[in-house]
């Protein structure tokens, strides 16, 4: 459904990604793991259009979207929840959700999707009128994912959904992500919490220094020794 083909990217003179290729299959959960500074978030920014790659191609549903501006991507079905949620803190939870349905694709189904999001995260219904900046970390993550869902995406991009959450909340959020996949959604996420993420995903990529060092079905990647080597770059 989504392919990255030999992507080079960086910020100014600093190159972060070197010839990264990866793919997310329709209806699956794909996870990118790796230590800090490996370039995981930059990959997601290339996919959402916030960073323009200097080389390579981004292909979504057989269409080359490498040069498509960020604001045109949600209309194709690409929705994301950025790192640290990045909600609109002074707007209420509900307004944050509504903003997710800014494009016609999301707007036309907004009422139904809002109901779907509230059923997925019942807590949000009670907290609808609270300013997003005042919500707890877990609630903010729910709003972040909910806001992305409001766009009626065919692929959901998540950047560190477990960031700053208590372990119990992490498993709760991960369970919801699995539930979304069961509903037919394709999920691509980046996680530091490699072990937990690989357990729910179908396919994984391990990154190091801006490159994919290992990839494969997650059952093959769940070798803790190898993971430890990837993270600490020993041997």
């Amino acid at each position, binding site marked *: 459904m989504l392919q990255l083909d030999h992507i080079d990217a960086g910020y100014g003179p600093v190159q972060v990604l070197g010839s990264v290729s990866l793919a997310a299959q329709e209806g699956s959960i794909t996870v990118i793991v790796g230590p800090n500074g490996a370039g995981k978030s930059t990959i997601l920014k290339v996919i959402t259009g916030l960073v323009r790659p200097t080389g390579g191609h981004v292909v979504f549903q057989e269409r080359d979207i490498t040069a498509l501006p960020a604001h045109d991507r949600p209309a194709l079905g690409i*929705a994301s929840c950025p790192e640290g949620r990045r909600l609109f803190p002074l707007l209420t939870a509900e307004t944050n959700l*509504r903003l997710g349905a800014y494009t016609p694709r999301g*707007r036309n189904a907004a009422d139904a999707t809002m109901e779907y999001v509230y059923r997925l995260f019942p807590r949000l219904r009670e907290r609808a009128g609270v300013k997003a900046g005042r919500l707890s970390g877990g609630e903010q993550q729910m709003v972040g994912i909910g806001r992305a869902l409001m766009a009626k995406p065919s692929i959901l991009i998540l950047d560190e959904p477990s960031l700053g959450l208590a372990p119990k909340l992490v498993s709760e959020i991960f369970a919801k992500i699995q539930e979304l996949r069961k509903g037919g959604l394709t999920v691509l996420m980046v996680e530091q919490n490699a072990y937990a993420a690989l357990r729910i995903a179908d396919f994984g990529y391990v990154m190091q220094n801006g490159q994919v060092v290992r990839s494969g079905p997650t059952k093959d990647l769940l070798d803790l020794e190898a993971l430890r080597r990837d993270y600490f770059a020993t041997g």
Partner: protein
Amino acid sequence: MRIPRMRFPTFGPTLYGLALLMVVLGIATPFLPIVAKVQLINFLLFVGLAYALNFITGLTGYVSFGHAIFMGIGAYALGGGIDRLGFPPLLGVFLGAGLGAAFAVGIGLVTLRFRGVYFAITTLVLFLAAKNIVPEISQLGEGGGIFMNLGFQPLAQFYTIWAIVVIEIGLTYWVTHGRLGYGLRAIKSDEDVAKTVGVNASRLKLSLFGISGMFTGATGAVYAWTLSAVLPETGFDITFSLRMLAMIIIGGAGTLLGPFLGAIIVYVPYNYFQTVQSLLGLQLAVIGALVLLIALFIPTGIVGTVRRYVPFLRRYIE
């Protein structure tokens, strides 16, 4: 729970109040003594400038320090139009609006790529450049200014600025209450995330900067009309940049009522201090102190603060 579509919005008490006030002013002014007419024209010039800056700085959060540049462009458009092309004043105001919008779009294409303080500094520098370039143009008086022999036309001036303000208020309401309003709040809050939910931030910012430049240009033209002259010092007057900012900060940036309240608070001392010899020149110091206090203690301005602490008024003012 419906996502607002692009439809004509429902009317609110603030809009009704402002509309009523403008209608009363529109009907009553011809019968007022001449001093009051002049006062009202000058006051509405301030209101016009406040709403004009509110479009960009209030609604998108991009602080423009150089907005007086568009006043200067409007003023010189009026002067040049009348002096060189034989335009009637009203046509000069339209020319000022058109050039204000055109220059704003041109400037915005480059400067709106900068964010935060970089945008503010760039607009300030452009203002300083324009202030020195325009007076060098020989067709525009070469720094000696342009003097127009227009005579005294208070009613024509009044209704021109009145119409500008009415359009600004209507447009502010329309922009903030539709789908665009959601997009603008997103941009003001977090521009990158706004893009990832599908807000065309560049186009929206540029449109608002253009609208802002258009109204600032038109108001600058009317200001020059009331002076019957365009001079480099009155055309490109940095204190107007500061007053514009002061008005929307005091009143409440991005709100519908804020710019109007801010204009009252900035205009009244401005006007009063000019009539008292010992206070002359102090008005900017007083306004400066006021802005400082508001920015420090109630950064959302009068409207934002009242809405926050007086819940029962929340439905009535915005």
